[in-house]
């Protein structure tokens, strides 16, 4: 046995405390044909337990401690309407939307004394986050892509004040000035991009019954928000070693070239180093619309089902995970708001299933 201390303890650690405030209204109108729910919540966490990075020369990368106070505040609205309600036709529509916003209320002085805030890298997706009082959680900090130069090389923004200060690394604190651009990604400054969290998400569904036919459809969606598309970056990467190639996106066909100088995609050049370096170029809208499920059925009139000795007989077709729209085909931002990993997905894509059947009730 070879013992070594793997982590640093913290004698001053204390309880994390969460205070919740919720208020809601449920309502029904027009004989309850339109009903719904509206909720507001305010959740404040004090002494948030958080990973506190320290300079790694200490022999450890950090420890757990109470970093400060944060607040989550949000709204949720659900509406349900029976638009048509007659003997032979019933049409119902339901929808919901929710919104959450985060705010850092207070940080431990040790985390703000150097730069007014602090950065933490997100290990799984390589997106660094910036934390400062008054700012949001999940505030991405990335080099900013500035298009291509006259030779088609990728350009990145530099904050000269940061670049010229030997005591600052390019990711010590976010840049504020866009002083000039560089092809040397390692010199690029990191800029805060704001919260990656979606503005809103929710779902809607509808059901229609008409003369024995029934149709149900359900969707879910997300509005706003951003995701770092590692998978796409991989698919757009040029060849930079003698190793064999990779899978590429067809978008590389639109790369900058002497005949295609208006393109914003850097040239696809062997040995170029920073063609797809981590930057806002791959920070992609996380909005999506998912056609989650649909079913279509027909229930035979009782007179006919009786011929089959059944009290009810319904035939139907139904499907799951039918269609998915996002900023890029193949990008699925549902599993994480921080980013996709380098294979482009964080789990296997949900299986699309389509099945049919006959329901017989005796």
């Amino acid at each position, binding site marked *: 046995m070879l013992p070594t201390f793997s982590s640093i303890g913290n004698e001053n650690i204390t309880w994390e405390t969460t205070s919740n*405030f*919720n208020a809601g*209204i449920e309502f029904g109108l027009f004989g309850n044909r339109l009903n719904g729910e509206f909720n507001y919540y305010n959740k404040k966490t004090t002494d948030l337990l958080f990973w506190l990075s320290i300079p*790694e020369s*200490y022999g450890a990368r950090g420890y757990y401690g109470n970093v400060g106070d944060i607040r989550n505040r949000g709204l949720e609205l659900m509406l349900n309407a029976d638009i048509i309600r007659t003997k032979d036709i019933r049409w119902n529509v339901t929808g919901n939307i929710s919104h959450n916003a985060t705010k850092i209320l207070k940080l431990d002085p040790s985390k703000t004394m150097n730069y007014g805030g602090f950065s933490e890298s997100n290990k799984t997706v390589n997106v660094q986050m910036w934390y400062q009082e008054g700012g949001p959680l999940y505030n991405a900090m990335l080099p900013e892509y500035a298009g291509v130069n006259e030779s088609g090389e990728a350009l990145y923004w530099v904050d000269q004040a940061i670049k010229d200060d030997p005591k600052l690394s390019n*990711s010590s604190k976010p840049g504020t000035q866009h002083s000039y651009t560089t092809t040397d990604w390692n010199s690029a400054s990191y800029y805060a991009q704001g919260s990656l969290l979606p503005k809103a998400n929710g779902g809607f569904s509808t059901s229609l019954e008409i003369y024995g036919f029934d149709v149900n459809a359900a969707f879910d969606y997300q509005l706003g928000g951003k995701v770092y598309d590692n998978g796409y970056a991989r698919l757009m990467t040029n060849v930079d070693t003698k190793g064999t190639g990779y899978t590429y996106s067809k978008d590389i066909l639109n790369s900058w070239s002497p005949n295609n100088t208006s393109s914003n995609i850097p040239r696809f050049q062997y040995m170029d180093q920073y063609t797809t370096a981590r930057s806002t170029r791959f920070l992609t809208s996380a909005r999506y619309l998912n056609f989650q499920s649909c079913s279509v059925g027909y229930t035979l009139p009782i007179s006919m089902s009786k011929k089959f000795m059944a009290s009810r007989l319904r035939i139907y077709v139904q499907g799951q995970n039918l269609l998915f729209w996002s900023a890029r085909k193949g990008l699925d931002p549902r599993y994480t708001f921080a980013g996709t990993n380098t294979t482009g997905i964080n789990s296997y894509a949900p299986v699309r299933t389509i099945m049919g059947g006959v329901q017989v009730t005796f």
Partner: protein
Amino acid sequence: MKRIYSKIILAALGVFSLNSCIEEVVPQGGSGGVTLDQAANAPGSFQKFVDNLTGNLCGKFTYSGSDHDVYDFGYPSFFLTRDVEGQDIVPVGTNNWYNTWYQDMAHLGPGWARTQVPWTYYYGWIKDCNTVIKMAGATDYADPAPDKRHGAGEAYALRAMYYLDLCRMYASKPYAVDSAALTTIKADETRTIEASLSQERMKWNEAFAFILKDLDRAELLLSDYSRADVYTPNLSVVYGFKARTYLEKQDWANAEKYAKMAQQGYTPLTEEQYLSHDNGFNSPNEAWMFAVRFKGTDPNILENDGDSSWGSVMLLENGFDGGYAANYGGPNVIDRHLFETIPSTDYRKKCWVDFKLDNLSKAAAIDSLKQYSDYPDRVYASGVSNASYGLGGLSLKFRNAAGKADVKYDAWCVSVPLMRVEEMKLIEAEAAGMQNLERGKQLLTDFARLRDPQYVYGQHTDAYGNTKTSPFQNEVWWQRRVELWGEGFATFDIKRLNKGIIRSYANTNHHEGARWNTSEVPNWMVWCFVGTETNYNSGITSNPDPQKPNADSDEYKW
């Protein structure tokens, strides 16, 4: 509208739950962990922490804790990450993990894992030394408890070794050029987290003072220590560290003195030992002063088919499917120019396959390989079929564990030297010659004749961009490059002597796209600090980001 409002049914008016405190359990001290005091009071624990100092030097996936990275096998891996940055070791083939340090400077900037690897390793090891010093009651150079003297002595010796390495990796300029140049961060057993948040690097002079203070301490505490084997440092190793430190500091008198003291009890390798097909550079002998070893129980051997190990990346002769050097297309070979400057009468030349074999038919080449290896087919396959490279320069200096070339993965359970008496002889010669040239020439010639009976002084004078270095030092340097090839000195010497590198010349075996000649120390040898340091330490002055040359250089004419 009024009607509508009047019909609103306030079915439920809010669910107020003001200040409902939810207290979550905070884990205290991690999962089942113990504190320093608890560990210090456990019976026999001190020796376990001491054993860890050397037991953790290799074999443990210390960087990532998992088998993701082939280069994550400990101290000897840094031999390669450093030395491929110059010219003496060429990481060839299509699947060589050391290629990043050789030519992919984009991934050596502050935001990359490869930049973090040395920082995590070295400062982790240093923390372990600090722990032992604290447990021994030796904080701030206090006298340790009598039964903990040897353990504390080992901790001081190793801490000095790490700091000398770190200074040589991170110093912004060689000591000879600027004695006030910044080196690395000082983290000793008295450092607090608060201090670490704003701390500047030591200057060379401060670093030397710190290193030598540790070594003085180690010398005192280990004066009566008799070690069980070559895998822990003893007094002679402390002398060796002192010799290295004074060499770097250009304190020639002390360098000579300690290099000479370090040699006591050791004898240089014989030709038979040097070229042994069974025991070549894989097990300790009378020449080895300090070493590490890979054991069958090490994660680096047990996991990932043993492929993340020194044996995997350096050895060509294993008879099972596996290994980057042998089978996956990633051997590490010698620079062609260095090889061709070795006279044929120097037996060390037989450590590397002659470039002439590339002109032979397969059958003739395999026949010729028999002089280098008992497994000529395997050596042929490693360079030609598996690496799509060729044969010239393939290294057979380091061998599989004796008699185990076919045994998975015992073949890679080898020892690797960290200090040999030959290095001390060369330090002694260089230091003597810098005080008195004739004395130095004599010592150098005496040493070189062990390897080449027909050695003549003055044949190896390549200046590599710095003609201010004396021809004598260039001659010693050449001996070091040949004698210590693959043992982690190449880049340290380039920086110490303020040399450039030459990879582009007629007949070169360096890669296209990396054939760079520089007239001074290449910027990527001044290692850049990882963001996990600079993002949280506002006091540290960063090194510039490494820059890759734009194009291959014109061929250098020797």
